Structure formats: C-alpha cells, structure tokens
C-alpha cells in the first residue's frame, strides 16, 4: 500500500507508541489528524493523555480491531474485565476516550459508571467518587422534601 501502515503517538509525558494505522483510526481525533495532514512518519502528539492511560486505551483499540469476528459473549466478558478498574483509572480512561473520541469505549465506561451508581445513596456516591457536597442547606432541604423518599 502506498500509505504508511504504522503511526507513532506521543503521550503527554513523552512516551512514544508505534502502532498499526488501523488501530489508531479507531480514534476519530487521530483519524482527522491523519486525514488533514497525512504526516508520513511524523509523530502525532496526544497532549491530554499520559502514557499509562494511553497504553490502556490502545489495548482496547487493538482488541476491538483484531477480535471483530469473536462472538458476542466472549467480547462482552473482555470488556467487562477491561473496565473492572479503580475509580481514578476510569476517570482517566473516560477523559482519554472523550479526547480521542472513541464512542464505543465512551459508552462502555459510562455504562460501567452508571452501574456503580445503581442503588447507592447520594452520600455513598460522593464517597466513591470523591465529590464535595456543594449544595446550600436550603437547596438540600428543598429536594430532600421533594425526593427524600428515594434516598433511603
């Protein structure tokens, strides 16, 4: 083929990843860069994603490229294990997936996060995700009155 089959990505902390072009194309962001500039042998910087997260994202991209023909069961099991990660890792992953624009990965992580919310009280969710309660006393009273039934 006339065009390069390998692409080099550079993480925010300077690590280089040499990967198949087809793998990289799963990221719409990188796809646009390649279409726009067609940088032969050039290095594409990915300033928003560090090496640890990028390698994990690329792992997902490789798996989903190679295993297109695997049956559904197998696939969903791998996905499930993939997102069985620490909360901070999920945060880095979803931000990276958002930046690189990989819709199936975004959906996968959103689904995982939603499943972590299920049946949890707002207090518990704040604890898991390390979120400050920034409601005023009045606000909190107000919706405790309206929907307090759901918090028990």
């Amino acid at each position, binding site marked *: 083929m006339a065009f390069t089959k390998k692409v080099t990505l550079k993480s925010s902390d300077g690590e280089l990843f040499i990967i198949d072009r087809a793998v990289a194309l799963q990221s719409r962001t990188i796809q646009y860069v390649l279409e726009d500039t067609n940088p032969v042998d050039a290095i594409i910087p990915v300033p928003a994603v560090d090496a640890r997260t990028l390698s994990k994202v690329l792992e997902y991209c490789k798996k989903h490229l190679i295993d297109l023909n695997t049956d559904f069961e197998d696939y969903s099991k791998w996905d499930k294990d993939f997102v069985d990660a620490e909360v901070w890792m999920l945060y880095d992953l979803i*931000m990276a997936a958002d930046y690189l624009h990989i819709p199936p990965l975004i959906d996968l992580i959103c689904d995982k996060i939603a499943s972590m919310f*299920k049946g949890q009280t707002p207090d518990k969710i704040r604890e898991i995700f*390390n979120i400050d309660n920034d409601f005023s006393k009045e606000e909190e009273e107000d919706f405790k009155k309206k929907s307090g039934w759901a918090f028990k």
Partner: protein
Amino acid sequence: MEDDCEWAWLPKDLLHSILDQLLPMEDVIRFSAVCTEWRSVAVENFESRSLHRRQVPFLMSRTKDDIGNLHSVTQKKMYKFRFPMPDNMKCCGSSLGWLIMVDVTMDVILFNPFSGNAITLPPIRRLVFEKRYALEVEDILRLSALQRYEYEIRLREEYGEEELGMSLDDMTFDLEDDDEIQGEEETDEKEEKEEEREREIGSVCRIRKGVLSADPSVCPDDYVLMVIYGVEERLAFIKSGDEDWTYIDNKTSGFDYLFKKSPPVKGFRYFEDILYWKSQFYAVDGLGKLLSCEINTNFTNLRVKIVDVPMAGFGIDATSSSTFFQQVVESLRNISIIWSAFLVESVEGDLLWVPKFRFEFLTMKFYVYQLVDNGGNVGWVKKEDLGDAALFLGDNHSISVRASDFPGCQPNSIYFVDKENETNYPGHSGGDHFDMGVYNLEHKAVARDYQLNPSQMLNPSSIWILPTFM
C-alpha cells in the same frame, strides 16, 4: 492521579451519557442530589429527553395519616413519603408526575405530590352545569314544557352558553301541566336522599382522565391539559394561561341525555382514553373510533378530526377480531361484563388501542390493536403479543417500557389497576372492590401478586405515577 479526578466537572456530554444508562427513576433522582453540577445536568437531561415516559411508574397510594406509598411492583420495594393532600378533592388521573384533581366547585387542580406545587385551573363550566342539572332533574321533570324552556333559557344565560342540548323541536308544549314544585315537607328524609344523590351524581359528573402535553414545571408557559369529562365523556382542553376551557363539541350535555331515550352517538362523545402522541392529542372510544386534535402552541389554530378507521376500527382484519366482537356483544347482553379501552404509545412509537374486559370487578382479558396505515387504508390490526414491552394502564397517562431495561419487569405484559369508577357496576356500591394485577398476553391470564391492603385505597386510590424531582 487520584487527586486529579474531578468527577463533579466531567464534561456534560459524558454526564448525559451516564444518565442515559440510569434507568430506574430512583437512581436518576439520587444522581441529581450528588452535587450542583450533576443536578443541573440531570435537570437538563430530564427536560430535553422525554426520559419520563420510558420509566416504570410507581403505584402510588395514600394512607390516612398523609403518608404516601410509592410501590415499585417490579422491584417489589416500597418507598414512603409525606403526602399531604388538599381536602375535598377527588383525584382523576396522573400525567407526567402530576395528579389531575377536581374539587367540589369543579375547579380543576394540577397537583404535584412530590414538590407540593399546585396549579389551579378554571372550573369546567359544563361540569358545573351537569352537576346542577343532575341535582335538579327531578324538579325539572315536574315542570311544564314551557317552564322547562324558561328554565333552560335562564341556565343558558347563567352559564353563558350559546346553545344547550335541548332544542325547542324536541319538546311538546303542555301548558296545562302547571303544578307547583313540591313543598318542603319531609326535609330530613329529603336531606338524606340528597346526600345519596350527590354521591351518585359525583360518580358521573366527573373528570374521567386527564393528560398533559408537557410537564408544567418544565414548560410553565407551554403545556396543554386535555380531559374526558362528564356524563357523556366528552373532551375539553386548556392551555397554560387560558382563562377558560375549550370544549371539543358545541353542545352542552345534560338535557340531551336525559330527555332523549337514547342519545345519538354522533360527534365527539363517549371517549375512553386520551394520549399525547407525536405532538397531538388522540382520543379513542370503546369501539376504536379515533379522534386527533392538533392544538397549535400559540393557539391560533385547532384542528380536530375523526381518523377514518373503517367499520368502527376493524377494516383491515375483521376476522381476527371476532372474539373481541363476541365479547362486545356479550357485554351488551350481560351487564356484569364491562369493557373499556386504553390508548398507549408502544415502545417502538406506534399507537396502540387496548380494550379491556372485566367480569364484575375482575379484569379478565385485554386485546391489543395497533394503528396501521396501509396505503391510506387506516385500521386497527390485532397484535398477538407485545414482545419485550410492558404496559402500565389505569387512571394514568398510559406508559409503555422495554421490560428488559428494568429488572423484575415482565415482558409481554400489561400491569393494570382499575379505573376508580369502573367498579360502579349495578348491584355494587363501588369503591370497595379494586382490582390490580398483571395480564400476560402469552398465557392470556392475570396474575394478582401486588395487591395492596384496603387501608391504602384512599384518595387517590392506587394510581400509576412517575415521580418528578424538580
């Protein structure tokens, strides 16, 4: 790494994607109570998508001490909340988290039991008229024709009606019959009778159902409420800000149905259910006659038409409907069989007409028909099953969901509670017998596993409702 996590400030589109995955309403409400940023996203999500209509509703009831019960029949869980309800009001339906209520003066009140917000709408004048007429009918019948006519003119002026149901042609003048109306003897007995009659009248001079086009707390200036009201189950609607109701029928009832032995079933009467579907209101009767009503948002335009469903709705597959017809015929012969009907939007977005048969106070069977437009030949086509769908029917704005989205929800099923007043079949006082259960279309059978105890059957007696959190 860990400290860099700013979950609260996750990009909005990501928070929306997460919310889209949260199906039970409780989880959405809890999400909205985590932090201000998430709350604003939850409210936005709630407003922009009609998330609401794709939720499994709760069966709401109220106990004497102002405690509301929200019963999740799919998860078999019960939530309690404080539910003070205004006195002297009768609950007639629920739509988008609001209850539609009527007070003794026939004022219509939209009441949100979660926020406690209430919106008072003008009275349905014709209902006031019907009630008065029903109360006075015995006296009226004693009047001579001329007196009746004068009485009608007086009422007409009083209620500002241009035309009442009775016309001069319908009457024979009998000037000799000029008796006085009976005096005031036997007052005690009379009072008792009055009370009893008032109760009876209350069961017909009522709103049968109410349906909102939008949640008034989301669109305070742009919602429409349509109701089925009165003896002849006709339609009226009001748009936010309107000073009066618009009646979809140009005659006042009352005289009409009492003086003529059998009122002509023409025009827009005897509706069973209303649905807001694809930006229009639809109403249906027990035989599948369908009416569409397009209410322009700036209200310059009202288009009402009867959708041409041939042969009372069985144009396309009359044969497969024969059992339905047999039951209709049977119900005419046997007063213990009662049939009613619902309109539902299927999970695929189609319009469903769902007749229901009851024997005395027990629901026996449902039929499901889908509106099909076969090259201009519109008709109801029978559906043998609902697939993954579950319907929630009762006094509420009908709801359908994909059962597989909700743990514990049975597919191919109809979750029902009786409409409150259907229990008023002859020989029973009504109110005491209240049926609820799940009808399975495959087995054609009803399971009754979520009965509530009788103390929970106050006003409103069990009604499907979708909680709001704003």
